[in-house]
């Protein structure tokens, strides 16, 4: 019941709009089915499942907006939710930033839904986890992990003729494998729309190798180092960048995208010229919905080209204020890379630090996008083109903006969670203290 087809969603929404007497009306449906399994110390600890569906209606008189929702779908309930939203709209003051609803739009297709992922049941989840546990048990290591899969749909329709529908699946897996004495730890994680791309056995082997190789870490002095960041470590940092590509906060002078003296950094060379950043909801390796909550179509958008800022996101309201076209904010960031493998990058490094991932990352200064956090689950010292020994974790204080100006090399791009990035070799990365954590 929770996942409606396009036709089923259309039928309900058409009926809902039929009850409307407001100037404008928008109805949206969303539903999801989710299941998960969590394990630790080589055994399952918790597991669960849930499903839900909800209908929301917004009615508008002039610039007065009212919203209401319901999770019952008989005719009387549908009528009641429309009436309630209309009552709320009449009682509301005007919203000065209200933008009239959009008319019909054309959306691209995106392969966000994969039947095989939707068909995952508790037994399949348990088997996928069993494969991970085989690795840890066989090597006398301890695994803790989480496997979560979901199917969902969203649909919206308005009284101006707009209709949008998307259904999607996701499966996410992460595992930490540790030595029983706690002296070594390794980790991998990833997300896919298509479960056939997820190999819990292979991923667990990577985590197990990191756990064993990280035993006996040496302490080296904090300071500025050349680092090779694996895709996971890159994604931990660069995923902060696009949040700042918001025109309004930049225009207001309170973002790293604001320019001294006023205005924004649009058009500025903000990064190394090898850095390109774009989003593309139809990318087959990172598909996402092709419309946003306003009903605006989402297209491939270039945010940074050859290091130059090419676009900022404009809400429909802010675009109207500034006399430009709206630009929906980007999701699913992609940074194209080069052809080097991680091994090539290590071979070409005289002295450096290999980082598996970062942890507990927080903004320290929004002015420079300075972040702090720590390395975790596999940090290694590189000398003369080879990994020499594991090292203790570091705390860093670094800005991804500065980091993307200090690029030495970009490897091959791959999906890491919900973005696609290459491994990166970065100069002068700032580590400020040592941590005893493993």
């Amino acid at each position, binding site marked *: 019941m929770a996942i409606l087809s396009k036709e089923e969603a259309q039928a309900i929404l058409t009926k809902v709009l039929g009850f409307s007497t407001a100037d404008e009306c928008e109805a949206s449906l969303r539903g*999801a089915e989710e299941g998960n399994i969590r394990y*630790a*110390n*080589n*055994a*399952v*600890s*918790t597991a669960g*499942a*849930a499903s839900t569906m909800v209908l929301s209606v917004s009615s508008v008189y002039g610039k*007065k907006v*009212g*919203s*209401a*929702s319901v999770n019952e779908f008989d005719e009387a309930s549908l009528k009641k939710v429309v009436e309630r939203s209309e009552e709320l709209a009449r*009682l*509301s003051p005007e*919203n000065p*930033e*209200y*933008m009239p609803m959009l008319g019909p739009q054309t959306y691209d297709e995106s392969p966000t839904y994969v039947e095989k992922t939707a068909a995952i049941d*508790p*037994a399949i*989840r*348990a088997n996928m986890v069993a494969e991970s*546990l085989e690795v840890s048990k066989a090597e006398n290591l301890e695994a*803790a992990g*989480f496997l979560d899969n979901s199917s969902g749909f969203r649909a919206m329709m308005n009284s101006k003729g707009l209709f949008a529908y998307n259904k999607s699946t996701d499966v996410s897996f*992460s595992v930490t494998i*540790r030595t029983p004495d*706690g002296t070594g*730890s390794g*980790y991998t994680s990833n997300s896919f729309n298509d479960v056939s791309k997820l190999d819990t056995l292979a991923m667990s082997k990577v985590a197990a190798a990191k756990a064993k190789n990280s035993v006996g870490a040496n302490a080296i002095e904090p300071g500025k180092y050349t680092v090779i960041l694996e895709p996971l470590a890159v994604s931990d940092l660069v995923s902060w960048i696009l949040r700042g590509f918001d025109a309004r906060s930049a225009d*207001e*002078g*309170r973002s790293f995208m*604001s*320019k*001294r003296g006023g205005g924004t950094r649009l058009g500025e060379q903000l990064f190394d010229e090898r850095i390109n950043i774009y989003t593309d909801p139809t990318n087959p390796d990172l598909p996402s919905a092709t419309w946003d909550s306003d009903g605006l179509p989402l297209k491939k958008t270039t945010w940074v080209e050859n290091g130059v800022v090419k676009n900022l996101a404009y809400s429909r309201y802010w675009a109207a204020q500034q006399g430009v076209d709206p630009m929906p904010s980007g999701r699913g960031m992609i940074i194209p890379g080069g052809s080097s493998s991680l091994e090539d990058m290590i071979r070409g490094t005289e002295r450096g630090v290999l980082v598996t991932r970062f*942890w*507990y*990352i*927080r*903004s320290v*200064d*929004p*002015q*420079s*996008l*300075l972040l*702090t956090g*720590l390395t*975790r689950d596999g940090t290694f010292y590189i000398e003369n083109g080879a990994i020499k020994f594991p090292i203790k*974790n570091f*705390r860093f204080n670094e*800005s991804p903006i500065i980091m993307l100006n200090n690029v030495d090399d970009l490897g091959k791009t791959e999906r890491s969670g919900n973005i696609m990035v290459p491994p990166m070799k970065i100069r002068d990365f700032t580590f*400020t*203290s040592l941590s*005893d*954590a493993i």
Partner: protein
Amino acid sequence: MNRKDFIYYTAMGMGASLLPNGGLFARPIDPLEALNERADAQTKKALADAALNEAKSKGATYADVRIGRYLNQFVATREKRVQGVSNTESYGIGIRVLVDGCWGFAATNKMTKEDIAQTAATAVAIARANAKLQGAPVILAPQQGFGEVSWQAPIEVNAFEVPIKEKVDLLLQVNDVAMQNGANFVNSLIAAVNEQKYFASTDGSYIDQDIHRIYPNFNVTAIDRASGKFQTRGALSSPMGMGYEYLNARPEDKVSGVVTRYKHRYDMLEDVQAAARNAAEKIKAKSVEPGKYDLVLDPSHLWLTIHESVGHSTELDRVLGYEANYAGTSFLSLDKLESGTFNFGNELVNVTADKTETGSLGAVGYDDEGVKCKKWDLIKNGILVNFQATRDQVHILGENESHGCSYSQGWDDVQFQRMPNVSLQPGKEKLSVDELIKDVERGIYIIGDGSFSIDQQRYNFQFGGQLFYEISNGKIVGMLNDVAYQANTQEFWNSCAGICDASDYRLGGAFNDGKGQPSQSNAVSHGSATTRFNGVNVINTARNI
């Protein structure tokens, strides 16, 4: 009550996307709906019994159900505008079962007896599927059934009964004061939470509870266009386990000093006036010279350091490895506990865990597995003496009664070990903040919480703050900027050099502390009095891009 006033601005749904949605199952509601009762205790008992009976008949050796109604209200504004008012309700049932020594959990918001029985059967099926992957079977500490009981948070004013217009008017006034005092931008927010929780278990408990939380907050921004610099100053309020009475300022709850701080009542208008002034001062403040400083930490700041370094490290599930894949483990171990000699801090440091302190976020009558709540020691005269545990963990500590630390953020998430209030006890000797500062030669007085980060075993941390004042030869000499301190938890708590007395004790807290997979949010308070730490490493965080 005037309906128009009550729901005034409610419907600004277009702005609601800015606001937290209160969970997967939360749906927007009319604020008046929040005041209707969903189901009486007898109806809930009948639904709970449907689940418990089905679970038992399918082979569960233990089962508990939580019928939860979770209400959230957010009123958010910026400058002269209401950004959004969001009221959400999430209502449903979560069923946890123990089958063959393994947990299973399932939840539904379809509240018929048939759907509930089917969900109980699903929970049993999940437990069975997972039983083949289990390690040692779950061992539950004994728990008496309490029969039909209830607990009500001792609030004076239910925030959900206060008209939206009153909240909007206050926030717009707050914004106006900020702008009048030189702010370039201001955002302000009032968040209110009401958890109506009904717990029942096969032990024979039927527990009805009503819990309230409130969080007024703002952020003031000052901008210097010429230099391109901007600074913010956040509110010195705390989220509290209270009703709307928290916003009725009283002189006796104000702590005067370099800036006014607050105890059990908050003066939002007074604080925002100071904040606008502070934000402008911060732009011109001296950039800190890195090095070792003695830190004097106000409770509005210290709560977060306690939370991260003491609260999380003493969670037994972390110690045992259950959080290894996400939040992490702990530098503490059962060995360190059992030694009875592990110096977490020096002898000044006494830390308690407490689920009963009035007005705190963690206060509740019974936890989410039907255990009556209490208070206990974690660190006594600097020595680690206990952890935080639930029913299925406490046997590992050699105890046969749960600490009552089980909590779930909603009916649709499984309950697990969550942090109680963890508080640093005030000094026994009379000591004021001025007396604490007067012996500091080179120090920094930090007020308000800022940036925070700590490693996955809780050794190495870094904290920022809202306001930094330079102390030179026992006197506050001016404001500093770009300050963050880094330390190791055990070294830090062993550098404690003085704790003010109980008259300075105040609560701070986290409204949304994350842990678990899927991640769940917990609300928890941390009390302390102003405390001095000697020789802490301070870094300068200014960078240019």
